[in-house]
């Protein structure tokens, strides 16, 4: 069972073992509106925690997606490049962005769990 953690920038990472699936939350996709373009990194690239890992564009604006923790990209979801609207439809399922091999599991401890993230979103109004 994956353990899901969240950033204040509304990325999630679903961790199973040392593999994390990264995407944006339902709140994020709602805020962005219709997503029309996703730019994903190359497999094999490594990111530090907080590095810009992907770009998502809505009709109105471009937004950067940051690596929630450091690690190496082992897979990207090419399906959302062809059909970006999937990120709106199913952000935490079929709309995932990339899989990371987590470099340092301790970094996950800095992220919010489900309950903390819900509380955080509630404060955003």
């Amino acid at each position: 069972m994956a353990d899901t953690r969240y950033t204040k920038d509304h990325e999630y990472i679903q961790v199973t073992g040392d593999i994390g699936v990264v995407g944006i939350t339902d709140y994020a996709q709602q805020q962005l509106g219709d997503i029309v373009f996703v730019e994903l990194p190359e497999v094999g690239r490594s990111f530090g925690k907080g590095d810009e890992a992907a770009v998502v564009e809505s009709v109105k604006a471009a937004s950067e997606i940051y690596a929630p923790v450091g690690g190496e990209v082992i897979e990207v979801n090419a399906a959302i490049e062809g059909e970006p609207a999937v990120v709106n439809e199913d952000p935490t399922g079929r709309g995932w962005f990339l899989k990371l091999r987590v470099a340092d599991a301790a970094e996950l401890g800095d992220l919010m769990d489900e309950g903390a993230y819900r509380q955080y979103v509630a404060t955003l109004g």
Partner: protein
Amino acid sequence: MTSASPENPESTQPLSTGAAPLRRTPLHLRHQALGARMAPFAGYALPIQYPDGIIAEHLHVRAAAGLFDVSHMGQAWLAGPDHETTARALEALVPADILGLAPGQQRYALLLNAQGGIRDDLMVARPADPMAAGRLFLVVNAACKEQDWLHIASAMPGDVTLETEERALLALQGPLAAEVMARFAPDAVELRFMDVTATQVAGIDVRVSRSGYTGEDGFEISVANDDAGALWDLLLTAPQVKPAGLGARDSLRLEAGLCLYGHDINQETSPVEAALTWSIAKRRRIDMDFPGAIRITEEIAGGPLRRRVGLLPEGRAPVREGAQIFDEAGELVGEVTSGGFGPSVGAPVAMGYVVSEFAKPGARVQVALRGRRVPAAVTPMPFTPHRYRR
């Protein structure tokens, strides 16, 4: 996730950055009840989108009819003793043919500065009603309206006065807009593109023009604030009509190749550079009796140094306002002034200024995007054909 683009119109309006409370249109509560996402624009809280989202709203306007609240725009009368006096007074500020405007007609005009730059773009209408002789109705951009009114009022001769009005403005836009208006105001359907009339919609006094900012057939309806809610509700009862927000308005006007003031045109751009030379009347070019006439007539004769063009970037990544444009040798040749995803085109679309050498259809350029260069083709606008009822 953080927003990295200055493209949001609400984030680029200097008037919205202060601590002053946002103004509300008479339809504010209706937008909230419809679940709109409200955002600041030109000092107003305005609906950016409703729950259907920008793409659905955009496509609905192209397929049926969308209803926009554009009450933030500035409305005023210019009132003088007769048409010639009022028209000549306004012609001192704009290069359009106002004198030759027939009763019941509207015309696009540019307020120019002394250097031939564009202070604002506006619509000027001459009422059909002979009782309104000597009066012209002006609609200007929200972000410019205070400055425009000061500028116009201070330039008028003693017998011409500017009377600003606090009224609502609704835009009903789309191929089925006429079908909807036929039900509520049959005489409005007789109008052709850029005609105006004063009439009633189901008993509500309105001023209607057949015009808009989407490239589609449609109507812009000026109505008293107190009647705006009833008119909005009535038009939304038509099954063809859905509300549409400023987000869709922006993507629609971009596909239609229409300029957004403060982005595609500004105090530095001339009408010739902006590919708006068509709005400068022949008589005015000969008489050279408008602000900046020397620069503008020189540019008409010799060609401008740069020109506004359409751009079709390759691939799916939108290019945004502010992106630099290069030639294939890597020389900087221009800048994107509006860009985004065109829902009807199904691909990214943009407009911007390039040096004249590249201002021809098919010219190849490259647009900077996140550290790389995206190939793009200079292309004629509009991106989607205008469907006005001429």
